[in-house]
């Protein structure tokens, strides 16, 4: 790393990027090898050593105490105190420090706001301020854009440029090629825990992707135009609360036809999870109705929904999709274990289960040591293939796929995408929910954008990314036409106007 450099660390999910950085931040201990800072080897016993050495990190899942204020979060671990051993917190000085740093780097945060009330984009800003108040020279950003809208991402990139201008070095961990090309000075690609190459940002997307995956991959999905049939899933006026009894889905209308993929795009946490869980009968519907192939599903158990021909690929495979301790074979029949040929009322038929498992494993290219291996020992991509195999083994009317390729390697993504399209071509209605805009654009025949519990627009797949991005930030085309410049402040809903100056810095650098 050079001072004032933005170094992108590019790699697939599970390639070892985050582990490497956690070692660098002192959270994990290295088994071998050493870290050099300014030419001297550095031995990190914990994060405090890393901080002392001028290394700061913004974690993928933010390390902020939700019930604390911004100032409390920032001062934690480096508290300024008065009163000797009593150690009374000097909040005034801390608040001043926060104000100073956020002024200097143009990172607007309210020092007295409570974290849990802040939007994700602002929370991330707090994380960056937290690192900067500790006088770091090297800032590690671990997948910082995963939870941001495209506009918030733009803002973040602008912040990174201004930090670079101030002489800070940044390690930018990501698997998104576009962002890397936009900002990085140098790119290191990691695959399976090894550095496989370095590249300059001039390298083409295809080159970078090939380096990342190890062979050339198709980034687009081949598919013929959809031939939509009759409506299969109809959702009208759906209202659902989340776990904290806060309204999450607020009057959603959706229709999915046979033989089409309806993609639901949106930043994570805008009600997509609750929408799907309500359709699946996993969450109470407070108002509105859901009909499946003409039949109202009100009051149906999840089992009944599944048996009615709905395939469900849940958002979080390790929690909702699989029983990790069970074998691959057992996981493959979780939905129909009690039906012939796998079971008869009382007993399971292990032979039939094993035989069917063997077929599925071959058909869906699941890489496992055996059908009897616990599914938890498989890689993320192969676990996901087990779920897809299970759900596609029944005759379906509707396939609901939530984040079907999250945390999955590129090879498996390709395979899963092709399976989804194949299912569509068989005449199944597909409801795809993904926070990866590229995935939605690549797969969907129609795109519904969800924002704050509502569908705020349904557009075609050839709509420009920027327009969808604005929708994801809650800005509809009419508002853009009217409001012009304010369109760049998606994170500012509860935060007042964000940083126009940051944008300015950004475009200068680009020019």
């Amino acid at each position, binding site marked *: 790393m050079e001072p004032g450099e933005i170094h992108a660390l590019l790699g697939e999910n599970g390639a070892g990027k985050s582990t490497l950085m956690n070692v660098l931040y002192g*959270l994990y201990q290295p088994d071998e090898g050493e870290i050099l800072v300014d030419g001297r080897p550095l031995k990190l016993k914990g994060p405090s050593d890393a901080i002392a050495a001028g290394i700061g990190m913004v*974690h993928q899942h933010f390390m902020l105490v*939700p019930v604390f204020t911004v100032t409390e979060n920032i001062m*934690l671990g*480096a508290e300024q105190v008065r009163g000797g051993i009593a150690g009374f917190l000097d909040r005034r000085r801390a608040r001043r420090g926060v104000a100073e740093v956020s002024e200097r780097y143009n990172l607007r945060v309210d020092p007295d706001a409570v974290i849990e009330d802040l*939007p994700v984009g602002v929370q991330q800003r707090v994380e960056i301020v937290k690192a900067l108040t500790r006088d770091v020279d090297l800032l590690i950003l671990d997948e910082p854009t995963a939870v941001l809208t495209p506009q918030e991402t733009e803002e973040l990139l602008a912040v990174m440029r201004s930090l670079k201008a101030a002489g800070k070095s940044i390690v930018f961990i990501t698997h998104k090629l576009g962002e890397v090309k936009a900002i990085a000075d140098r790119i290191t690609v990691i695959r399976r825990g090894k550095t496989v190459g370095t590249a300059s940002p001039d390298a083409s997307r295809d080159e970078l992707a090939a380096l990342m995956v190890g062979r050339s991959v198709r980034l687009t999905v081949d598919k013929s135009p959809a031939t939509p049939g009759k409506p299969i899933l109809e959702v009208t006026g759906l209202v659902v609360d989340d776990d904290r009894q*806060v309204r*999450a889905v607020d009057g959603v209308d959706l229709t999915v036809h046979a033989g089409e993929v309806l993609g639901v795009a949106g930043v994570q946490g805008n009600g997509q999870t609750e929408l799907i869980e309500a359709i699946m009968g996993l969450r109470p519907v407070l108002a509105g109705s859901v009909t499946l192939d003409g039949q109202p599903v009100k009051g149906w158990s999840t089992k009944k929904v599944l048996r009615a021909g709905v395939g469900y690929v849940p958002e979080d495979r390790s929690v909702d999709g699989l029983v990790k301790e069970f074998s691959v074979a057992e996981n493959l029949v979780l939905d129909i274990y009690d039906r012939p040929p796998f079971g008869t009322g009382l007993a399971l038929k292990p032979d039939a289960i094993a035989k069917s498992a063997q077929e599925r494993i071959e058909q869906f290219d699941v890489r496992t040591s055996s059908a009897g291996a616990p599914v938890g020992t498989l890689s993320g991509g192969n676990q996901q293939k087990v779920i897809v195999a299970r759900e596609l083994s029944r005759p379906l009317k509707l396939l609901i796929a939530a984040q079907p390729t999250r945390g999955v390697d590129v090879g498996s993504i390709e395979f899963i995408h092709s399976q989804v399209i194949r299912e569509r071509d068989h005449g199944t209605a597909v409801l795809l929910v993904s926070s990866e805009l590229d995935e939605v654009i690549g797969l969907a025949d129609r795109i519904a954008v969800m924002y704050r*519990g509502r569908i705020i627009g349904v557009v075609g797949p050839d709509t420009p990314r920027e327009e969808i991005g604005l929708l994801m930030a809650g800005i509809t085309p009419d508002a853009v036409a009217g409001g012009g410049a304010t369109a760049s402040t998606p994170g500012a809903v509860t935060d007042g106007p964000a940083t126009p100056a940051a944008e300015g810095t950004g475009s200068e650098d680009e020019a």
Partner: protein
Amino acid sequence: MSTMAVPEVAVAPVDEGFWTRTRKAGAVLLALGLLGAVLFGTLATDQQARFTLSEDAAGAALEVNGTLGAILFGVVTIAAGAGVLAGLPKRWFTLVLGVGLVAFVLSFLCWQVSAAPAGQNFMPLVNIIRGTFILALPLIFGALAGVLCERSGVVNVAIEGQLLMGAFSGALFGSISGNVWVGLVAAAVGGAFISLLLAVFAIRYLVDQVVMGIVLNLLAVGVTGFLYERLMQTDAQRYNSAPRFSNWEIPLLSDIPVLGPALFRGNIFLYLGLLLVLVIHIALFRTRWGLRTRSVGEHPTAADTLGVRVLGVRYRNVLLAGLVAGIGGASYTLALYSFTKNMIGGKGFIALAALIFGRWSPTGALLAALFFGFADQLATYLGAINSVIPSQFLAMLPYLATILAVAGLVGKVRAPAADGKPYIKG
């Protein structure tokens, strides 16, 4: 891979319609007021209800006609309930609710005191207040021990055991040495011993904290019971006759009417308990130690990434909790009674309830403990005046209130997010 609950969608608060939580509270208050004005008013007699400002029937007193008082205070409660229902500003809510509840209790007392047998229709306020504090004292210490533990993310079900071990070792070493201060220190160490076991097993060996707490309670009962029979019962003179702290009168403060004799002529434990509430409250919310403690209890991973030693903080706090609870145990054996088998008798669990009722805050816990203590004292008083209300019924009320509180009916109760979850690095 976990989907973090990011409060991105700050949608409008739950639409509860007309019956918001506040309005429900108002309706309940209104119903209580009606109960007071009508039922208590009817049942009360025309006798004067005297609330004497002393320890007996003598001296100055606040007097009111029984029927009149019961109806009057009932009406106050009705007014408070109606006010809340009509939608008072939010900042008034707690005050009005408090006034309403106190008036309801007073309405009840007017009935009870006026209906008492002749010669007994008075209530000595000094006794009642002093008794409330004495009964609340072990709860205060116990709940503080809970606050210290649970704010750092370790569930402390072992409060009962810590109190018991404190009471036992206070009695034993106080007796052997013949010195109260030695007894006090030994009591604190005894409580900390139970805490140490809790800490080691819960933090180091990741044993389920609730199960561990229950086991430790049983261990404390077993060990102290065994030693009590083998040691104390055979030679009570030598092993179970600890000297006691005498009452200290605080100059000036003890001359305040009613409160002076009730509160400022107490023993060291009373003063220490109240002082600890204040100190821990300030420390928890104003100092570095407090910030780190709370961060470890809420989001230990975040604290770790900032160089806070999570396990260290937890060990320290669990041990501190043991010291506090141990002293609480000594408030029995070094001030009131000699040690008997299982003498804490479940107060540790009530302290746990006070902790939850008081929403994991030291001052909240104090108020909850006083509420329990008052109910306890009232039950005793009503027994003494041969009330028609069975004292068991009154003794039940605090627990009913706790269940309602824990069920979230009395405001939002939120435990520290990482309470009970062991921290495993990486």
